[in-house]
């Protein structure tokens, strides 16, 4: 029999339904895997006892015939989601010890669907980073290794790097991620798994530690397209507690996986071939185009002329929103407090000690671009360019049904590489940020391996609230890619 930790969620769901194994057995196997892979530093907090209790309750529900859509399936929760009574830190010193008295809507929905959480997963501090090296609780290691340098530690991508590493290393079957500029898709690509950022508004942001509110969106990360569809179904839906969550029906995403994409027009944006795009990534993209052609869809060259401006636009809008959102960390109400003689001094001491370098940098830039005299030159300008970027996509979708691009310009890189210059590091998100700026759904799936044995991802971008077409095309591409590689020793 296949190892329990190698099953997909869909397979485990069927196994549980047939009584082939119990939720307690499934959970225990994954708890063992988290212990065996602890060196990856994927978890900030492990909650094995809570998980076993939840698994027992799940088995009881199944006996009673009241099992939910994810009942008994072991998952991990990115430590950006508030979880009632369980420490939630956003990987920041400033929130160390914070135990929310409430549950985020998305993690609560997953619980309600029966999912069993194994704990809180590591991330870049406040989700700010593309390599998971900015966490106060230490960097996460990618379970994949370069064949040419098997000892070198690679980054898992970010910010949902703990989620991606835990799923890739079979510690959990799936995990929640959040994506502000690519934080689900880029780590999914680096770790050889699948992840989707749904349309902005599809999932509630209530109880998710805010980074940039006009961009943040939760989504699932799992090993297959079907598993992502199952999990998104459990996460999505209107929430009166988040006025940006959209009040529309949640489709049955799993049903969208028909395997038939005949007649679809697939946009290939010519601007997604920047200097520095690795040859391997370009080749995998070509391969992806061949797969969709073979399945009866038609690639169509399109132009998204404002693509090159998405990154600079993002690095005005996201820091501006973060400087405002992170004003709440003041040493008064929760988390760290560093004393000072005056109130202002206490604020300043607390925030200096509590925030890491990348977070401080973004707060300072955000404060600057919002300050009197610079607001119009930077922030208002960026909001106008953002509209042009979104318009590019709207026009493109008049002639195509979906867009296919690489997810990241390269495979995973080594820990410590590229950390000197923030702007260089940010280039990792060059293909994911435009989608975020336009609020569109974007999915990354593993499409092949680099010469050095590392996963490479492809991204599918859909129309607003058309995750179904994204899943449908992703399902066909997944079959064609037949990505069966696993990290060594997993």
């Amino acid at each position, binding site marked *: 029999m296949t190892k329990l930790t190698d099953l997909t969620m869909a397979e485990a769901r069927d196994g549980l339904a047939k009584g082939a194994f119990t939720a307690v057995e499934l959970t225990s196997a994954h708890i063992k895997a988290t212990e065996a892979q602890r060196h990856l530093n994927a978890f900030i907090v492990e909650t094995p006892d809570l998980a076993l209790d939840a698994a027992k309750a799940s088995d009881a529900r199944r006996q009673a015939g009241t099992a939910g859509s994810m009942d008994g399936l072991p998952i991990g929760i990115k430590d950006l989601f508030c979880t009632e009574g369980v420490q939630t830190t956003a990987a920041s010193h400033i929130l160390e010890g914070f135990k929310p*008295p409430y549950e985020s809507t998305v993690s609560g929905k997953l619980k309600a669907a029966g999912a069993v959480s194994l704990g809180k997963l590591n991330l870049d501090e406040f989700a700010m980073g593309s390599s998971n090296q900015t966490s106060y609780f230490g960097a996460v290691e990618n379970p994949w290794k370069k064949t040419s340098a098997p000892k070198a530690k690679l980054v898992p991508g970010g910010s949902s790097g703990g989620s991606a590493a835990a799923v890739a290393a079979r510690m959990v079957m799936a995990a929640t991620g959040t994506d502000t500029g690519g934080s689900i898709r880029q780590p999914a690509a680096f770790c050889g798994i699948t992840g989707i950022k749904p349309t902005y508004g599809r999932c509630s942001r209530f109880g998710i530690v805010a980074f940039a509110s006009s961009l943040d969106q939760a989504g699932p990360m799992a090993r297959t397209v079907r598993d992502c569809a199952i999990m998104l179904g459990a996460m999505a839906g209107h929430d009166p507690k988040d006025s940006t969550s959209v*009040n529309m029906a949640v489709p049955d995403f799993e049903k969208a996986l028909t395997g038939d994409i005949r007649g679809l027009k697939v946009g290939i944006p010519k601007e997604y071939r920047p200097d520095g795009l690795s040859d391997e990534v370009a080749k995998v993209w070509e391969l992806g185009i061949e797969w969709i052609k073979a399945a009866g869809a038609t690639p169509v060259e399109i132009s998204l002329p404002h693509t090159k401006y998405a990154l600079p636009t993002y690095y005005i809008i996201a820091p501006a929103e973060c400087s405002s959102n992170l*004003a709440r960390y003041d040493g*008064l109400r929760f988390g760290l407090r560093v004393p000072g003689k005056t109130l202002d001094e206490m604020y300043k001491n607390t925030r*200096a000690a509590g925030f890491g370098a990348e977070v401080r940098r973004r707060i300072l830039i955000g404060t600057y671009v919002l300050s009197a005299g610079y607001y119009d030159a930077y922030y208002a300008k960026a909001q106008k360019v953002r509209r042009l970027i979104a318009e590019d996509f709207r026009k493109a979708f008049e002639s195509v049904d979906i867009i296919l691009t690489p997810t990241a310009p390269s495979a995973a890189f080594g820990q410590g590489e590229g950390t000197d*210059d923030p702007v260089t590091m940010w280039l990792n998100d060059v293909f994911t940020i435009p989608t975020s700026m336009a609020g569109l759904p974007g999915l990354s799936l593993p499409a092949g391996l680099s010469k050095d044995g590392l996963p490479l991802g492809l991204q599918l971008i859909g129309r607003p609230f058309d995750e179904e077409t994204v899943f449908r095309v992703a399902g066909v591409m997944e079959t064609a890619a037949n990505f069966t590689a696993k990290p060594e020793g997993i």
Partner: protein
Amino acid sequence: MSLDKATVRAIAELARIEVKDEELDHLAGELSNILHFVEQLSEVNTDGVAPMTSVADITAPMRADVINDGGYPDLVLANAPEAAEGFFTVPKVVE
């Protein structure tokens, strides 16, 4: 635009983040690089373009102006670094 040390100090003050003197040079350099990078937006013609404040094409919903949650001061104060008599405490602000 390049930021000088005085400007960085002023921004840090606005952001309520203590920055040590010896960090100012380095920070000014980093922040200036970021500003140089984002300034390529000035090439884009945005005449007549309305700023985009939300990507979701929805009207903000209204709700009745009533209290529908609350009444648990203990939970609100549970994570406070310092609380006393049902309140958050702050350093003395009035002599």
